[in-house]
């Protein structure tokens, strides 16, 4: 369990890091290292160079910024999980993230792991990618051709596959700030606290009189990327939970912890629980 030999560089600027990526096609970015180091130690990957971005200033902030209609929460790529977990800004303006944080791994891992790393890595069972999708957030990336912004809906493309280019660095994620109409729900089922979930569900909606609108459901652990069951979202917007459960069209695979049938069943259970959370906040 020792990694294959690799070179290590710790650039001080984003431009320097991007240049290094350009010069070394099989280099990897090192953020918190909580996912990357395990794959290196197990020799599942053997990059020739690690580009440690922890020395780059200004990538670790969590801030409320002005947005088009409401505010926007901007989370720098290097913000650690623990920072988000303890952030007043997150608690107030991104309650879905606040719900998800304690379920991500364990304190030691949350101390090192970064939100940017989690979104860049895009583990299909991870919480944050699903939250990003449920909140209709965005990803900021910077590469040799400059900066660009990618909508969550376009970002997750396949198993550990994202819209990030090989020479691009994720610099921040952006989420619409919650307002009084915002409703969120979060639930996951993991055999042990802190494990990647067998199946999980992150949800957001807006209160609409007595009902809900703009319901966005994002499942994790049931496919190659976080998945939105659009028909169920529509049914929930109509207030019909049974129809929402019946309309679930997930197609998970068996894995070590559960069969596809169990995952599907649990997805339905979670939908009822999360729907109840969304509705309860309505009062």
């Amino acid at each position: 369990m020792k990694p294959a030999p690799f070179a290590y560089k710790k650039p001080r600027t984003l431009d320097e890091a991007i240049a290094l990526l350009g010069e070394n096609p099989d280099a990897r970015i090192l953020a918190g290292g909580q996912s990357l180091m395990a794959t290196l130690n197990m020799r599942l990957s053997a990059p020739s160079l690690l580009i440690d971005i922890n020395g780059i200033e200004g990538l670790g902030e969590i801030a409320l910024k002005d947005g088009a209609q409401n505010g926007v929460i901007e989370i720098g790529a290097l913000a650690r999980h623990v920072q988000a977990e303890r952030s007043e800004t997150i608690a107030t303006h991104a309650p879905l993230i606040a719900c998800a944080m304690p379920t991500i791994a364990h304190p030691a891992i949350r101390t090192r792991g970064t939100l940017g790393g989690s979104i860049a890595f895009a583990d299909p069972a991870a919480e944050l990618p699903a939250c990003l999708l449920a909140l209709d957030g965005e990803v900021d990336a910077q590469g040799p051709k400059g900066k660009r912004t990618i909508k969550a809906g376009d970002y997750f493309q396949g198993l550990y596959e994202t819209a990030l280019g090989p020479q691009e660095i994720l610099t921040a994620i952006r989420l619409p700030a919650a307002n009084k109409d915002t409703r969120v729900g979060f639930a996951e089922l993991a055999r042990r606290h802190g494990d990647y979930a067998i199946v999980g569900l992150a949800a957001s909606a807006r209160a609409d009189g007595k009902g809900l609108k703009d319901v966005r459901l994002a499942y994790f652990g049931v496919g190659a990327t976080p998945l939105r069951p659009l028909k169920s979202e529509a049914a929930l917007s109509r207030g019909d939970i049974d129809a929402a459960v019946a309309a679930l069209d997930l197609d998970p695979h068996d894995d070590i912890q559960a069969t596809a049938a169990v995952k599907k069943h649990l997805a339905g259970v979670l939908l009822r629980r999360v729907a109840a959370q969304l509705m309860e906040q309505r009062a």
Partner: protein
Amino acid sequence: MKITADTPSALTALDRPNSYIGRAVPRPNLQRLMQGRGQYVSDVTLPRMTHVAFLRSPHAHARIVSINTEAAKKSPGVVAVVTGAELAKVMTPWVGVLTHLKGIKSAPQYPIAVDRACWQGEAVCAVVARTRAQAEDACELIDIVYEELPAVTDPETALDPATPVIHEALDDNLCFERKLDVGDVDKAFANSDAVVEATFVCGRHTGVCTEGRAIIADWNASEQRMTVYQATQAPHMMQDLFAKHLDIEAGQVRVLTKDVGGSFGIKVHTYADEMATVALSKLLKRPVKFVADRIESFVTDIHARDHRIKGKIGVTKDGVITAFEIDDLTGIGPYSVYPRTSGIEANQVVNLTGGPYNCPNYRAQARVVFQNKNVMCQYRAVGHPIAVAVTEGLVELAAAKIGMDPLEIRRRNLFADDSYPAQTASGLKLELLSHHAALAQLDTMINYAGLRTEQKALREKGIYRGIGFASFIEVTNPSAAFYGVGGARITSQDGATVKLDAQGAITIHSGVTEQGQGAEAVLAQCVASSFGVSMDRVRVVTGDTDNTPYGGGTWASRAAGIGGEAAWQAGKALRGNVLAVAGAMLQAKPDELDIRDGLVVDKVTGAERLTLAELARVAYFRPDTLPPGFQAELMATRHYVPRAWPFAFTNGIQASYLEVDTDTGFVKLLRHWCVEDCGTIINPQLVNEQIRGGVVQGIGAVLFEQCLYDERGQMLNGNMADYLVPMAVEMPDIDCGHVVSPTADSELGAKGAGEAGTAGAPACIMNAINDALRPLGATPLTDMPFTPGKILKALGKV
């Protein structure tokens, strides 16, 4: 948390003034370990030390056609690349059989596979290099051509004529078979009012130690001596085995075992890669270090418990158990593990099933078969969790069938507390147990009636809680009956040497070992109490075959009961020797003196006569002032081995209270209780820690842990993310209670406590789950571990 009173109630020989027996004193090694100053094998670095990494077979069964090591030999830092054939010239193979397991057979096993790999993970080539990383780099350059052979993986078909035989010389895949038929089982079933049958499955799992297996071997050619630093439970056993297979004298081998980070039976076996490390050092004449990493641990540390048992119980309508019958099948990998064999676990299942109950009719069959998976052998509470699951599972299923309360059916069948000595149907001799007292204590402790009321009320609200029990007996303090009589050079006796230093402090050298359970605390307590000093005046030395008395080490819950008794007796003997010196110095009769709290005192009045420091000063530096012809002996050695009983059986009962989420199949453990009887309690805190830790391992078995293999013999979840060990958040509070029935075989009266928790927890949680789901008509769950998927299936939801 309930801790028994600090002072025992009735005065016994153990109640010396300032006795530590029965007191929850902290461990002497705690500060050192907590400050990170422990010395584990990985902390040891020797001059000229090299590191070995093993290339391991990716196939469950394959012929090794060729090995090309040229590129690897040129890799940076590489000292040597060694194949199995080359190492076979340095070390002889071994065969894991014992004569008292009649008919057991196995094939010769080599330090590194020769010609054929028999499980995924078996070492096929070794690279020795300056660093472990360099050795791993070079492993990737070794080119092996394999010819894949069919893998035998399913025990159910291992004996079919169509199934390939793994070791041709053995004729079939049967390692060991045992049959037992006592009383008249058929008649008993025929006369029963109800007969219940069920098939129980225990998932293959392993003991995950905080510290992986680790060894440094250092062959000193100038002295012709091998020094081995090893994380082992049994240094003297390993000394003997290293010598035997290197074909040198035992005296040429020294095994040093300092701190060990958990063992649970994992570190009491012969591992091919550790034997290879020793052989490599002999070959290369320099120190070689091997530390198993997590990934290789999962495919090489022994696995255990992979059993399928068909069970049957008969009862009358009054709840009298008429007979037990079991048919056990277990697959143990391609080799019976050396030297304890892989037949013991099944043998224990046969011995222990039905053990708590006075039922004369018992029939058992156990078959142990070879397969191409990692080897199985003894892990904490060997066989007990399986036998207890079958027995207690059947008892509660039978109770449900006749509509009797699960505690009541036990009351009607457990051996009566006044019926000892007694013997189980399988022939186990029981000195003195306390099943009924333990049950009564548990009944009160858990407020059983109250729990049932709560359970009923919650069911009406759709909340499904369950209460389950498991009575058990546990093998501890084994005599030579366990291994010695079968020809294994594994000693059941143990020794302690106690010496007074020149300032009046005590050092004890003991043959038992410390793996984190607090054995050193127990030794210090025993010797401090019997000699008469405070514990801070006692230093404990263990784990050095050059310097400690010959002993068995720590396994089978023997350290306190056997090692503790030797320490107690050695302390007493030294007290006698010291009082002889004191008598000579004070012109008093030694038997009118005593040692209390570090002082020689008048036995009757307690008045101080002499300090130990003064006595030591005179004995060591001014022996000329002692009477002519008097020789002070300030070191004493005593050994102890149980002789009156083959094993000191303990007993107890556990209870679990849990809630099943019937939508998700998730189980929430609400509370767990264990009342046990380990005889004299030397240190209640350490006993309770053993019980709690053991229960947690049992919880792992019943809810989380399983080594999953596919049909080609590939382990699917050999890492800490996919193999689920129990973790703190999911664990319930565990309350311990005690009944004390000392063994008369030793003065101390202590039996073992290390395995009781593990023995009973799986059965009791299984019973609680079934109790919770019974009103829903769920099929009883008997296939461990109980994953959410299995529970949902039993509920008909998937």
